[in-house]
């Protein structure tokens, strides 16, 4: 009996150290997110899944996603529109339209009047079709030039404005409220931490990190599952991020 009393604390200490080790075990991942190479550490018991251009860390029904917002600055828009024009000139009309339809251009224009000035040219290039006459093709090329000149005149947007634009594409705006937002430093870069929740119930808390990476934003977000589980993993992922 006495020996059992001596052994029990030792057994408990071993169990505790094993469980602490299991919790502390992490795995480093090298990821290409948009055009940004990064690395981060994820808990070893969270499975890594690549979904097209997105990176998902999941554990049962809990999920945290790492992704690129797509172009949000005027330089990013201009690069994509020039690429769409190249496709159009190469008769890859459908591909050019797919590329244009991905752009969240409307929100980048600060006023309705400025958007109205470009909207007819935008519609012309984003609805162009195969088999157009020479005159119609000429009109589309002029429209591309008009859109590019209007995009070049767009004002520079701050991080908050870019983050809101990215958020609008990720969540329906009419169902959520921003619970809080605060600037953070991630591997020496300034980012924005944003939390949203359901407007009616304040359930479905979702945490986002937005960090500018040139023409787009690097995004980390909690997704499905219990926020009490996804929140700490989100924080651990963000704390371990290194931009290369």
């Amino acid at each position: 009996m006495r020996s059992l009393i001596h052994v029990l604390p030792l057994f408990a200490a071993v169990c505790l150290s094993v469980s602490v080790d299991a919790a502390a075990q992490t795995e480093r991942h090298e990821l290409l997110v948009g055009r940004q190479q990064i690395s981060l550490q994820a808990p070893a018991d969270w499975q890594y899944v690549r979904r097209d251009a997105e990176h998902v860390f999941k554990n049962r029904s809990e999920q945290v996603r790492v992704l690129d917002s797509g172009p949000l600055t005027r330089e990013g828009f201009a690069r994509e529109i020039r690429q769409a024009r190249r496709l159009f000139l190469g008769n890859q009309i459908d591909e050019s339209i797919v590329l244009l339809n991905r752009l969240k251009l409307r929100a980048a224009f600060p006023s309705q009047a400025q958007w109205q000035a470009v909207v007819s040219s935008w519609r012309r290039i984003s609805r162009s079709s195969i088999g157009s006459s020479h005159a119609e093709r000429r009109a589309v090329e002029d429209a591309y030039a008009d859109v590019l000149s209007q995009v070049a005149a767009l004002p520079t947007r701050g991080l908050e404005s870019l983050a809101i634009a990215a958020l609008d594409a990720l969540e329906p705006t009419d169902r959520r409220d921003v619970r809080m937002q605060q600037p953070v430093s991630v591997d020496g870069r300034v980012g924005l931490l944003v939390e949203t929740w359901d407007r009616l119930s304040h359930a479905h808390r979702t945490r986002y990190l937005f960090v500018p990476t040139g023409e787009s934003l690097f995004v980390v977000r909690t997704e499905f599952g219990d926020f009490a589980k996804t929140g700490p993993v989100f924080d651990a992922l963000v704390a371990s991020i290194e931009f290369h």
Partner: protein
Amino acid sequence: MHQSGDLERSGPRGVARCAWIVATLLLASCGGEPEFVTTSELPIGHERFDPASLPPPEVFTWGSQPISASPAPEGWYREKAQSGGLRGVRFIKSRSFGEEIRIAEHYALDNRSRCAQLTALLRDFENLDRRDFLGALQRARFYAPDPINSYEERKVAAANADLDAARTAYLAGDLNGARRAIQQALRQGSDILYRIEEVIDRVMFDPGSYDSFGEVETMPPQTGYVAEAPSVSVDYTLDSRDNGHLYYGRQVYVLENNHLFVLTFHGLQHTLPLFEAIVDSVSFPRGQCAR
């Protein structure tokens, strides 16, 4: 009067219910100073719930008037509540016999206000083109086919006349005149004021809705205040024939800044003090359309 119109529409049951509410409210207010009874002084729910055990208050903004309240503590899960003309949140006790606390707003009153639309219209005035301006102006028109009181009827007519004037001025190129007319419509709208007895019948507890669950006994409504806003509350018991439990219910109706909030409890007697603590935690932060 709107009230009599409602009575005609709602039939004998509605007449009885409305008469009951009006009679009780009159009784409460006659004979000099009205004797208001606060919800915490009501006869059931004798124990007190330690308010320090409640989570910190959250500000819910469902319309133009926010409401702040502590949510139910751990052991209750939450869902959005959208039914019966109400929108809000409901807290359901886990592993219980259907105990629920609900905080919601009767959104039809919020929809009658055009403050948010007119404020947005004035804010975006410079950035709207003609088509969008006229569309926003149309959406900002007041709509009250069944005026709650005669004052609302007059003010709605006057505000819509101002919006007509804004349209005419805008089409004539008089942007300053259009802006002034919209500001005048906003002032007309903010003059509209409802009293709780004029709007409460829209949400008042209907014992008939529980007929199929058991025997309902309803106490007379009590007037009072929640966060300094006028309120009415109704207590009831439901002797459930499904599981043999005696349920206690309380519905508290609060009118703040022309917005009607409904706080409801349905559960076992020992949980009622928690609901009372949640009601005590309510406050009304200043919204964009505060008077």
